[in-house]
């Protein structure tokens, strides 16, 4: 045996270098999204605009939706018909959904005309679009489980729509139990996961700068190189 057959001392993993899958995930997370990047204390100057507020307003609305939804779930799907507190919670749940979609629409317009998918932010845009589509499905099932004439009307109108596109066998909008479970379990879970992904991507890639900021920075860089 020659000395070259012995394992090299410097090839051994350093104490800081993780060898387990949990350690590797932690190292990857700390490298790509360290705490100061995930929960920053400052933002670029261009974020000082009302148009940048609407994403957060949408999340705040979502939090109110989730909290009031949990209270309604504890009470039961028909509790709000006979309880004044339940009626109040139901109204809060309904109006926070209206605010959620209002703020999300302005957020969408702002990001669309800002071309917010610039700078490798395509996945941020895509997760936002999926979150909106999932939210529409969640709101739709919410309308179906109001247990009133409005929900009956919506169910019997929409069943024709779903049947016409071949989805009636999979999603039966007149099946109250299926719609309740989709509204309080499956769809909120999907919305929650996709919104968390969306927010993490915003933190990872950073808030998209306005096009003018990029142009200005480019002009300054060219001027500095030329001088």
């Amino acid at each position, binding site marked *: 045996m020659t000395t070259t057959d012995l394992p090299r001392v410097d090839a051994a993993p350093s104490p800081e270098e993780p060898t387990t899958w949990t350690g590797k995930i932690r190292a990857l997370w700390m490298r790509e999204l360290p705490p100061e990047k995930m929960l920053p204390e*400052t933002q*670029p100057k261009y974020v*000082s605009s*009302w*148009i940048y507020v609407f994403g957060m307003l949408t999340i705040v609305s979502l939090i109110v939706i989730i909290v009031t939804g949990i209270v309604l779930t504890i009470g039961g799907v028909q509790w709000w018909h006979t309880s004044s507190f339940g009626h109040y919670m139901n109204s809060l749940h309904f109006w926070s959904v209206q605010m959620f979609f*209002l703020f999300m629409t*302005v957020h969408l*317009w702002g990001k669309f005309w800002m071309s917010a998918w610039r700078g490798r932010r395509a996945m941020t845009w895509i997760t936002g679009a999926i979150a909106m589509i999932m939210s529409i499905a969640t709101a739709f099932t919410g309308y179906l489980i109001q247990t009133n004439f409005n929900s009956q009307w919506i169910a019997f109108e929409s069943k024709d729509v779903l049947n016409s596109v071949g989805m009636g066998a999979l999603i039966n909008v007149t099946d109250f139990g299926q719609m309740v479970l989709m509204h309080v379990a499956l769809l909120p879970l999907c919305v929650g996961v996709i919104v968390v992904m969306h927010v993490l991507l915003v933190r990872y890639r950073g808030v998209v700068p306005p096009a003018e900021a990029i142009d200005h920075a480019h002009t300054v860089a060219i001027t500095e190189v030329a001088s």
Partner: protein
Amino acid sequence: MIGIAALDHPADYFTWGIWSISAPNLILFAILVLLFVGALLLPFPKGGEHK
């Protein structure tokens, strides 16, 4: 305004040629546009340090 807000009768509709929109949807759309334009034009309050 009370007539527009009342929910016990069908909504009023505005029609221009092939285009038709209910009064509640038109009001909602106007609020959205106002919010969007306001968000672009209204000054943001100063506060805190920004880099």
